[in-house]
């Protein structure tokens, strides 16, 4: 987003971004703040990166908040949501971004690998939507954006757990869009392709090369390019868009 749009899009809105201290989630948290939102992020164990993010948010003149919460915990999600409402005076935006992958081919995948990814990526998203939904329903407005993956649409070798979780979130997005539509709540998903996060920068060269060969625009996406789409979906500019899964992948899925 450009500077001139600052304050216009999300002035004074209260947002939660799960997994907001690193990678795509961090870019989202910072772009929401840049556009005028107060932003709360969670951290699981170490608060170092989260506190740095909060500092950056505050440097932009917005309120920032780091809350210890394991997204796979229903109670933590409820508590964090309560805290945010108390601190920010309400809740307008929920971005479910926290996710992990624990790859392995299906014939070697351990039960723990499956359970962990489903608990964080799929149930974690449910947990926060479940906590935010009554608030959004009551106030007759709200924006939910779930960060999924193109691999949740097409499948991916070695990612049965991850693609099942992300595919599940895509379906969850559509169902909740139907359920909350009449209360003027927009529920959408963005499905990134391979994005150049720290995690990807450390990936083996052949992983990057294989993805690059698939991406029509011939380059990896930047975390900010996903964040801009999330900001758009959280703004009134997108008020008629709901139940959509938007691929942000340079044409990788096409």
């Amino acid at each position, binding site marked *: *987003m*450009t500077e*001139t*749009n600052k304050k216009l899009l999300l002035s004074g809105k209260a947002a939660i971004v799960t997994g907001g201290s690193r990678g795509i989630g961090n870019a989202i948290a910072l772009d929401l703040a840049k556009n005028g939102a107060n932003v709360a992020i969670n951290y699981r164990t170490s608060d170092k990166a989260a506190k740095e993010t909060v500092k950056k948010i505050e440097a932009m003149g917005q309120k920032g908040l780091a809350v210890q919460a394991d997204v796979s915990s229903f109670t933590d999600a409820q508590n964090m949501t309560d805290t945010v409402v108390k601190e920010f005076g309400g809740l307008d935006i929920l971005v479910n971004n926290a996710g992990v992958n624990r790859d392995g081919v299906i014939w070697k995948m351990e039960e723990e690998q499956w359970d962990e990814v489903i608990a964080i990526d799929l149930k974690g998203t449910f947990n926060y939507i479940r906590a935010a939904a009554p608030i959004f329903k009551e106030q007759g407005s709200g924006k939910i954006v779930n960060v999924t993956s193109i691999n949740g649409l097409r499948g991916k070798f070695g990612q049965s757990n991850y693609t099942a979780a992300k595919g599940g979130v895509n379906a969850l997005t*559509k*169902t909740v*869009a*139907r359920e909350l*539509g*009449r209360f*003027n709540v927009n529920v959408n998903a963005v499905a990134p392709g391979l994005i150049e996060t720290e995690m990807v920068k450390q990936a083996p060269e052949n992983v990057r090369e294989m993805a690059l060969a698939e991406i*029509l*625009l*011939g380059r990896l*996406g*930047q975390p900010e*390019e*996903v964040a*801009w*789409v999330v*900001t*758009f979906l959280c703004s009134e*500019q*997108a*008020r*008629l*868009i*709901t*139940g*959509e899964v*938007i*691929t*942000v*992948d*340079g*044409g990788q*899925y*096409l």
Partner: protein
Amino acid sequence: MLLKDKVVIITGAGNGIGRATAVRFSKEGAKLVLADLDKEGLKTTAGELGKSAKFTPVECNVTIRDEVQKMVDTAVEKFGQLDILINNAGINMDGLTTRIKDGEVKLMSDDKWDAVIDVNLKGTWLCSQIAAVPMIQQKSGRIVNTSSIGALGNVGQSNYAASKAGVIGLTKTLALEWARYNIAVNCVAPGATKTQMTAGIPDKILEQFLGRIPFGRMADPEEIAAVHLFFSSDMASFITGQVLFVDGGVSVGV
């Protein structure tokens, strides 16, 4: 301003969504070529632009190659380049495909089929094809096509639905063909929008329509223009080949 000094062609700029897009893009700093068959409509659109607006109106039938060439030439000659094409021109000529009433066979005419396919599908193809020449030369560009919720099927609109579903296939193919030149091709699929096209819908049918929209209302043209802006701006820099329904949730799960 999101489109400062960008050169944009908008087809069907003399009315409805095209007019709203012209007004919005002008506010965002774009230089506009406003194309339409309807001269009076173009005048009204021009009147709604601010005093400092940079634009030139062009009378153009999007189904005629020479006229489309002239439209693209106008952009390049007057403003020195072409950055964005909004393929918005469209018509509908509704009627049941085949009907037998009191023993009498009534068929949709060839004229109705041809006219709608010509404007909506061939027109989009032609404008894209010719606009892509300067875009390929400058190795950048954005094209936004217009499909419709009707692409999913609608009684009495076999011609319109076929044309709009065709636009989706065209969007994805052009995205594939031109990604190597850094040209993004995306598509907006509006639901029922308050324009001339929907003004003639009988109240009874309109009510049925509204009942199917989770948000319970029609779109304003400005709400579609906002999505044209999104696809035309840097916010969508990593998106291509995407079809975005802007329909208050009607298409969710379809």
